[in-house]
C-alpha cells in the first residue's frame, strides 16, 4: 500500500473520529461489575464466595451489578473491555488468571477502578487483594493431624500454581506442627484451568490417597474438590473444604473448611468504590484481618472435640500475635 487513494481519506478520518463522537463512558452513575473465573459462580467454593459478596452488596445498597462467567480464556479481555467501555465504575476480577487481562485493560481505561483478587497488578488504578491462605491452611493441617487415626493425611490441589502450593505448604506445616512424624500425600489435578472443574478426577485422586492410608483430605481445587468431598463421604473418611464454608455439603464427613472471605473482599471493593474510599495498591488479608479462617458450625460441631478446638484456636491466636510463624510459599 504505497499511497491511499484520495477518495478514502474522508472515510478514514470519519472512522478515526467516530469513537470520539460516541458518548463517553458515563461516570456519574455508580456501576459495579464482577468477572468470575473458570469454575463458574456456583462452584460452591471460590467463585461462589465472590458472588455472595456481590449479592450482599446489591441487597444492602440496592445497586445492581453486572457479572460475567468466563468460559474460555479469550473472553477475559473482551469482557473487561466491554464492561469498562459501557461505564463500569469498578470491576472486580476474581482469580489469578485474570491478571494479564486486568493489566491490559486497566492501562487502557485509567479512569476505571479495578480490583483483582488473588493476583497482583502494579498500576495506579488497580487494587490487588491477596489472602494469606497459608494461615488458614495451617489451622486445617492441624485439625487434619488431630483427627487422623492413621497418621496419614492428604491434599488435593486444582491447577498446579504458586497459589495452590501456598495452601499445600501451610497445610503441611500445620499437620507437622501437631505431629512431626505425620505422612502427607499431595496431588495436583492438572496444569490447565480445566483442573478446576473435573470432579471425577478429584474423586479418583482422593480414592488413591485413601487407598494409601490417608483418612483426612484437604482440597484446594474449586469444583474438582466436590469430587474429593464426595469420595470422602462415600468412603466414610474426612474431607476439608476450601474457600467457601463447605461444611454443609456432607455433614458429618467434612471436618472443617479453610474459609477465604472473598465475599468480604468483593463487598468491600464495591462499597469502598461507592463511598470513594477505594484505594489502589496491594492489600493482604490474613487471620488478623478476618480474611481467612477455619469454619466451625452445626455441621461439623460433632467432629471437632473441645480439645481440638482449643488447640487450633490457641494456634490461631499465636499466628495473629506473630508468635507462631507460618511458612510462606515463594515462587522459585
Amino acid at each position, binding site marked *: 500500500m504505497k499511497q491511499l487513494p484520495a477518495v478514502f481519506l474522508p472515510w478514514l478520518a470519519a472512522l478515526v473520529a467516530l469513537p470520539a463522537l460516541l458518548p463517553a463512558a458515563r461516570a456519574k452513575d455508580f456501576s459495579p461489575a464482577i468477572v468470575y473465573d473458570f469454575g463458574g459462580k456456583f462452584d460452591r467454593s471460590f467463585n461462589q464466595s465472590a458472588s455472595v459478596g456481590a449479592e450482599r452488596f446489591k441487597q444492602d445498597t440496592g445497586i445492581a451489578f453486572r457479572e460475567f462467567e468466563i468460559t474460555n480464556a479469550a473472553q477475559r479481555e473482551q469482557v473487561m473491555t466491554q464492561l469498562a467501555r459501557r461505564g463500569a465504575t469498578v470491576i472486580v476480577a476474581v482469580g489469578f488468571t485474570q491478571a494479564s487481562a486486568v493489566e491490559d485493560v486497566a492501562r487502557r481505561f485509567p479512569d476505571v477502578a479495578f480490583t483483582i483478587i488473588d493476583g497482583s497488578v502494579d498500576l495506579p488504578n488497580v487494587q490487588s487483594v491477596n489472602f494469606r491462605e497459608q494461615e488458614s491452611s495451617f489451622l486445617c493441617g492441624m485439625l487434619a493431624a488431630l483427627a487422623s487415626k492413621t497418621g496419614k493425611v492428604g491434599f488435593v490441589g486444582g491447577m498446579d500454581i504458586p497459589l495452590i502450593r501456598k495452601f499445600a505448604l501451610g497445610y503441611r506445616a500445620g499437620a507437622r506442627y501437631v505431629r512431626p512424624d505425620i505422612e502427607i500425600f499431595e496431588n495436583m489435578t492438572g496444569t490447565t484451568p480445566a483442573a478446576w472443574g473435573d470432579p471425577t478426577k478429584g474423586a*479418583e485422586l482422593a480414592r488413591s490417597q485413601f487407598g494409601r492410608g490417608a483418612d483426612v483430605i484437604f482440597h484446594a481445587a474449586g469444583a474438582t474438590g466436590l469430587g474429593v468431598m464426595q469420595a470422602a463421604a462415600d468412603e466414610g473418611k474426612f474431607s476439608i473444604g476450601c474457600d467457601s464454608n463447605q461444611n454443609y455439603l456432607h455433614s458429618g464427613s467434612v471436618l472443617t473448611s479453610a474459609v477465604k472471605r472473598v465475599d468480604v473482599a468483593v463487598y468491600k471493593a464495591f462499597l469502598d468504590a461507592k463511598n470513594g474510599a477505594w484505594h489502589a495498591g496491594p492489600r493482604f488479608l490474613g487471620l488478623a484481618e478476618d480474611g481467612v479462617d477455619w469454619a466451625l458450625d452445626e455441621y461439623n460441631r460433632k467432629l471437632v472435640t473441645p480439645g481440638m478446638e482449643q488447640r487450633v484456636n490457641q494456634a490461631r491466636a499465636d499466628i495473629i500475635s506473630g508468635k507462631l510463624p507460618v511458612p510462606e510459599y515463594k515462587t522459585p
Partner: protein
Amino acid sequence: METYTLIVLLLAATIRVATPLLLAALGGMFSERAGVIDLGLEGKMLGAAFASAAVAAVTGSAWAGLGAGILVSVALALLIGFAGITHRGNQVVAAMAVNIMVAGLGPSLALAWFGLGGQTPQLNAPSQRFLEITWPWAEQARATPAPGLLYAELLSGHSLLVYFAAALVPAAAWVLHGTRFGLRLRAVGENPAAVDTAGLSVNGLRYQAVLISGVLCGVAGTYLSTAASAGFVRDMTAGKGYLALAALIFGKWRPYPTLGACLLFAFTDALAARLQGVALPVVGVIPVQFILALPYVLTVLLLAGFVGKAVAPKAIGVPYAKED
C-alpha cells in the same frame, strides 16, 4: 506388602476409569463396523450425563436417570443418523455439530432448570446414584492379603454399571462375530452394495447400529454423573468420547483388543494420579507436569510403534446411495 496393596488399588482404579471409555468404545464399535463414523460419542455421553443427573435429582431414582440418559443419547444418535444416513450428509460434521450443541445445551438447560450455574444439584441420596456394590464377605476377605484383597478391591466394590460394561465385552463379541445380525452389520460396513443386493436394507441396519451406540453411550454418560461422581458439571466428559474413539481404533475395531486399549488408557491415567509426588527408585520425584502428560505420551508412542496397521471398515464414512 505395601507395594502389593498399591498395585491392587491401582488396578481397581483402572477398572473404574476404564468403564465409561469401554462402554462408549463398544458403542462406537457397532456404529463404525456398520460404516458410520461415530465422532458423536463425546456429545452423546455428555448429553446422557446431563439428562441422567437431572432426572435422578428430580425423581430421586438412579434408574429413572439411566432411562433418561439412554433416551437422550439415543435421540442424539438418531439425529446424527438422520443427517448422516438418511440425508447422506457428512457424518463427521453432523457428529461434531451435536458435540458442540450438547456442550452448550447441557449447562444452559441446567441453568434454566436448577439455577445452579450450569450444574445439576448434588445427588446426595443413595437412591439417586449407582453406588458401589460390596460382595458378600468382601470386608472379611480384606484381612487375608493375597487373594482376599484382590476379591475385595477388584471383584467387589464397583458400581452395577461397571459389571454391566464387563459383561458387555463378550456379549458384543458374540453379537458381532457369532450372529447373523453381526455378520450383516459388518457386511454393511465393508460392502454395502452386496448387502443391498442380498435384499437387506443398508440404512435400516445402519440405524440399528447407531441405536446400539446410542444406548451404550447413554449408559456411559449415566455412569459419569451418577456413579463416578454425584451430579453433572460443565464439560464433565472431558474428552473421554474422543479417547474412547482412539481406544476403538487402537483396538482395531474388535471387542477384546478394544477392551485392552481402554484398560491401558485407564491404567496410565490411574498411574498418573498415583505417581505424583512419589519418589521412585533411581529417578526420584518426577515433576507433576511430566506425570500428567504421561497418558498422552504413552498413547502416541503406542499408536506410533506397537499397534501395527489399523484397517478401518472399508465403507466407513461413506453414505450409501442406492443406484437408481
